[in-house]
């Protein structure tokens, strides 16, 4: 249908009477890396959760890899199989081993044989540098390791797009670096990435574009050097002055 990975036009969403997303328009090209930032409550997490259907939008259109998210049966599952999501709180399944966490969806959604799923899972656990933890339970790992497992779990589905919802916000300072490094390595493979984060260093080095959101709307979209050096909107300026000190 198109060359873009994600196409969002005229998207609106409400929580009860509260207007969380206001007329969002955003197109992400294949292989593009977009960082979304903004103050808390600006709707950036909601936007990213709309992209794989965890939140439903009420107005507008949202197309992911040519498939439009809709009320049609099976559509959401089809989109989700193409989109990996990494949460702030990792959300690993505590009753399954690291390996089982990774193989669950490939086996039951993509119907891969167990052995194949395991080979795939090990490949991605190696990519995030923790193959030796494969047989442990999530509770036995540190926060940084858990988040890397979560990344490997999403990758084992071989998605075309990876979404990150504040992946380092729940981590102790000394563990942020290992997760960010993994994400940089992932970016180098050409993966399409949408990242909600406050790590401006990451945005500067990895992003093609930075999206600034405030009060449910997109205020400014710009390449990182332009975004950080000469922001257009006064709201962006104020945000940057608070976050970069």
């Amino acid at each position, binding site marked *: 249908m198109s060359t873009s990975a994600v196409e969002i036009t005229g998207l609106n969403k409400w929580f009860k009477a509260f207007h969380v997303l206001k007329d969002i328009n955003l197109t992400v090209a294949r292989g593009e890396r977009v960082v979304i930032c903004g103050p808390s409550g600006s709707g950036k997490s909601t936007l990213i959760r709309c992209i794989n259907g965890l939140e439903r939008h009420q107005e507008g259109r949202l197309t992911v890899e040519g498939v439009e998210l809709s009320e049609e049966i099976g559509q959401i599952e089809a989109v989700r199989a193409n989109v990996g999501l990494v949460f702030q709180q990792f959300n690993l*399944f505590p009753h399954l081993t690291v390996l089982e966490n990774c193989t669950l969806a490939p086996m039951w959604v993509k119907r891969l044989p167990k052995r194949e799923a395991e080979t795939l899972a090990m490949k991605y656990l190696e990519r995030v540098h923790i193959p030796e933890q494969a047989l442990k339970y999530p509770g036995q790992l540190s926060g940084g390791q858990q988040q890397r497992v979560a990344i490997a779990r999403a990758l084992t589905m071989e998605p075309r797009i990876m979404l990150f919802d504040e992946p380092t916000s729940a981590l102790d300072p000394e563990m942020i670096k290992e997760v960010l490094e993994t994400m940089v390595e992932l970016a180098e493979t050409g993966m399409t990435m949408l990242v909600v984060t406050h790590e401006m260093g990451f945005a500067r080095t990895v992003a093609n574009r930075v999206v600034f959101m405030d009060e449910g709307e997109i205020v400014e979209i710009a390449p990182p050097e332009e975004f950080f050096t000469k922001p257009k909107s006064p709201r962006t300026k104020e945000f940057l002055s608070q976050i970069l000190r």
Partner: protein
Amino acid sequence: MANAPTKASRPPPRAPLPGPIEWLRENLFSSWGNAALTVVALLILYWVVVPFVRWAFIDAAWTGTGRDDCLAFENGACWPFVSERIGQIIYGFYDVTERWRVDLTLIGLALGLLWLTMPGMPGKRPVGAVMVLAYPLIAFVLLAGGFGLEEVPTTRWGGLLMTLVVAFTGIVASLPLGILLALGRRSELPVVKGLSVAFIELWRGVPLVTVLFMAANMLPLFVGLSVNKLLAALIAVALFSSAYMAEVIRGGLQAIPKGQYEAAAAMGLSYWRSMAFVILPQALRLSLPNIVGNFIGLLKDTSLISIIGFFDLLGIVQAGATDPEWATPNTALTGYAFVGAVFWAMCFGMSRYATHLEGVLGAGGRR
């Protein structure tokens, strides 16, 4: 390498162990009020324990074959009543030559339960599946007959056998039904939710006795055929306990963080798959202590089926105590003491197991 040596750890100073006198003073006689309490407690113990021990052991009749052997012991238990009737107490009126089938069933149950409750046994999942899926069928064939085994009508079942059949059927049938109801109660579909809530609250709102009355008097009208009385009672018990099971499981489901549901959905797992592989395994584990608690309640409640004419463990002893062959002032009490001991051992054991599970789940959390 360290330039300043770290201080070596040393053991804590040992507190002198309190002698028996200090212990007594501290725990029983620390003040006048405390001492008074101790005296009251001792008096209660003296008034309860001493007469009971005298009645149950010292003044009791231990051997004999009929009421005359007990009448000589006016103020003591009539144990021959229990030992002479033990066959009936365990098997009811089950044919004596076929009792081995009951033994086999009960041994299978005991082995299965031991396997599942002992920590560190391998293959708990397959054994659990066998106990829940295959064992009830095998047990049914063994007990009722068929496949070359002589048929024993359910009207002849009784005693401990009946108690265990009702309790075990109740728990096995109420687990899947309870899971469905708990999921239904949390459903987003209003009809599913409404029906589940109505079903659960209806059964939880009425006493089991009325449910059993319903099974005995109303079910035959609704089905239109003559229903096996035991089957009707079993259905009633299963429906009744599934409502309680649903609430226990709902508690477990509520304790699962929202992120688990979202993570499962985000991977593209369908509703049923995310329930089966992600949510329910965790929720059932969390509810396990309460499921055991539920089972204890159910086991105690099985005694109510004697009200609609079944001879369960309590019912058969109650019937035996009024039998003129054994009528003595102490027969009923002896029977109650025995039945009480059996129930107490089962319930107390299980409640200890539930407490242990709570500790394991609380401390380890995850495996």
